[in-house]
């Protein structure tokens, strides 16, 4: 068990900078998820922690020791790969014990560790099978088992669930969380799936273009995104962005979306945005759940407007409604009992207490 620290880590391939100087502190026992679109450098970062890629610049520390030039086998880490990477000619038990056998552990110790891991992962009856006789989910369990038996300082997961179907993915997600709650090994987990990131992580690291956009707990990222990228990446359906500007109407701060639509800001928000320039180009960020059907008794800070719906998507628990505002497609969530129909107008309410205001040029959340 150990903490992992990255200091100004850079990875350069010939002329491409895949990772551009990232700083990251991962505490002992922590489950950290690196998330971002493909090509954002998250896998490269993980592979640098593993030692499978050299670092161009900076320092990586595991348990306080700088491991920049330490080969993977001496870093005391275990890694789970996307395509499982099980040794096809070995049985499940042999796969799991390979690392221990290389280190000449006593036979009894190996057996007890393999049995323990197999029991934990519910694959005890499969230990004599070869990988090709297993289903995708079972293979992933074996790959995790191979990591667990080593009792490493750090677990590294590289998109371990991407090859599984949606249902199995949800199930394995829970398995991974259970395993971490039991063994408490420091874990770095890479995924492009923000749902996986939110559900698994103690802290999420959102990466983009080789840089860290924001580090925070899942709730922090969701409710207090720092940038437009994080605001748009975390949450599904994604946050809506509408071009807007601020204006003063008879002494009160308003937000103007279109010629027709302008809302007074709730007092707390008005105070926060008072210093923003009135002619600055801004974006209003609103999550779909904060655009709902209008109610008979609106709460303070909730403003109403009417719009014609383009598309509706009944989801059962709620109905997603899509409409266009100033050229931007907007998604809202309404109660399924509301009579929402495509092509028909509907009166909607926006909850400005939960709004985000972004600078359109810099993408920063104000």
């Amino acid at each position, binding site marked *: 068990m150990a903490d992992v620290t990255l200091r100004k880590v850079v990875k350069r391939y010939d002329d491409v900078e895949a990772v551009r100087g990232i700083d990251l502190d991962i505490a002992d026992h922590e489950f950290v998820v690196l998330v971002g679109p493909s090509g954002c450098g998250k896998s490269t970062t993980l592979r640098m922690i593993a030692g499978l890629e050299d670092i161009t610049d900076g320092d990586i520390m595991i348990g306080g020791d700088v491991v920049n030039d330490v080969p993977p086998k001496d870093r005391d880490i*275990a890694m789970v790969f996307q395509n499982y*990477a099980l*040794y096809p000619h070995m049985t499940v038990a042999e796969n799991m014990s390979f690392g221990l056998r290389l280190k000449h552990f006593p036979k009894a110790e190996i057996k007890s560790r393999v049995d323990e891991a197999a029991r934990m992962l519910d694959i005890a009856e499969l230990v004599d099978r070869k990988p090709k006789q297993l289903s995708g989910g079972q293979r992933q369990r074996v790959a995790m088992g191979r990591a667990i038996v080593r009792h490493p300082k750090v677990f590294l997961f590289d998109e371990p669930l991407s090859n599984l179907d949606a249902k199995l993915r949800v199930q394995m997600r829970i398995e991974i969380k259970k395993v971490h709650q039991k063994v408490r090994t420091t874990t770095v987990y890479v995924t492009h799936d923000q749902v996986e990131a939110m559900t698994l992580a103690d802290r999420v690291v959102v990466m983009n273009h080789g840089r860290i956009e924001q580090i925070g707990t899942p709730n922090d990222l969701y409710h207090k995104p720092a940038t437009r990228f994080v605001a748009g990446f975390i949450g599904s359906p994604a946050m809506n962005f509408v071009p807007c500007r601020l204006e003063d109407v008879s002494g009160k701060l308003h937000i103007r979306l279109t010629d027709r639509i302008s809302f007074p800001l709730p007092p707390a928000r008005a105070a926060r945005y008072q210093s923003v320039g009135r002619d600055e180009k801004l974006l209003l960020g609103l999550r779909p759940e904060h655009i709902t059907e209008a109610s008979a008794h609106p709460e303070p800070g909730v403003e109403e407007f009417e719009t014609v719906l383009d598309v509706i998507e009944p989801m059962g628990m709620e109905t997603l409604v899509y409409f266009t505002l100033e050229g931007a497609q907007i998604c809202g969530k309404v109660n399924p009992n509301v009579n929402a129909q495509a092509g028909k107008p509907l009166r909607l309410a926006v909850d400005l207490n939960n709004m985000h205001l972004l600078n359109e040029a810099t993408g920063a959340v104000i």
Partner: protein
Amino acid sequence: MASTVVIDKAAPTRSVKYGSMSRDRAWALRWSYFFLTLFAIFSLVPPIYMLITSLKSSAEISAATNPWWVFHPTLSNYAELLSSNQFLRFFWNSAIVSIIVVTITMLISVPAAFALSRMRFWGSATLATGVFLTYLIPDTLLFLPLFKMFATFGDWTGIQLINRWYVLLIVYPTLTVPFCTWIMIGYFASIPKELDEAAIIDGASWFQTLTRIFIPVALPGIIAATIFAFTVSWAQFLYPLVFTTSVDQLVMPVGIVTSLIKGDVFAWGQIMTGALLGAAPPLIIYAFLMDYYIAGLTAGATKG
């Protein structure tokens, strides 16, 4: 549980035709059978002719009767050859040369292929192409300079290589190593990168990754390469003809030709028998390991 039979009333009563696809396929099959039959005849006629001739006495061969029929079958050719010390010597020389060459080839080409396909050092791609290019130089061009080299080597060191069977242990690998390395590079390339990364993280050294992961996983490819190396060394004719001359140093292909043709007298019955017996070992190996051989040669094609 009672089984139910569903009768589809709308099922067509005439035989089903699937349109142009099946017609194309039928024609493709007809052509395939036509050419396969042609090639089968083409390649099977010589061994059958050899078998027929090997069962004839010299008298019957020279009597110029129907060459495709044996009127007085005899095993005397087999008996004479198998009791001849000379023939057994050739067979023994061939066997020992081939086995050692196969061993040398595998010991060189498997680690070489592993290094070239996985260790990605400076110039490894160029080197891999270079290995293949050496295979393209025909032995008919190489034997003269090689002969000169061995002669000079003998003059300098006093170690005589020419006209010794073990000189073949040096020259045969020039044919087998490049091709086997090339086959193994292709085979290793089909093994996913994550497999060696997993092994490295598990604590395996490069050598352990090779012996404990790559060799077992690539076994079909290794067997294919082994068969190839064996066939090449067993059937090689030019090099032993050039480098060995004494009867006790000869391998079978050259031995049969030089010892059974005396001036203009051809012992056809024994030549054919010798050739048949000589073809047996590779045939037996192929028969047992055919599946591996095919799997090895097509690995790159199917695994992407």
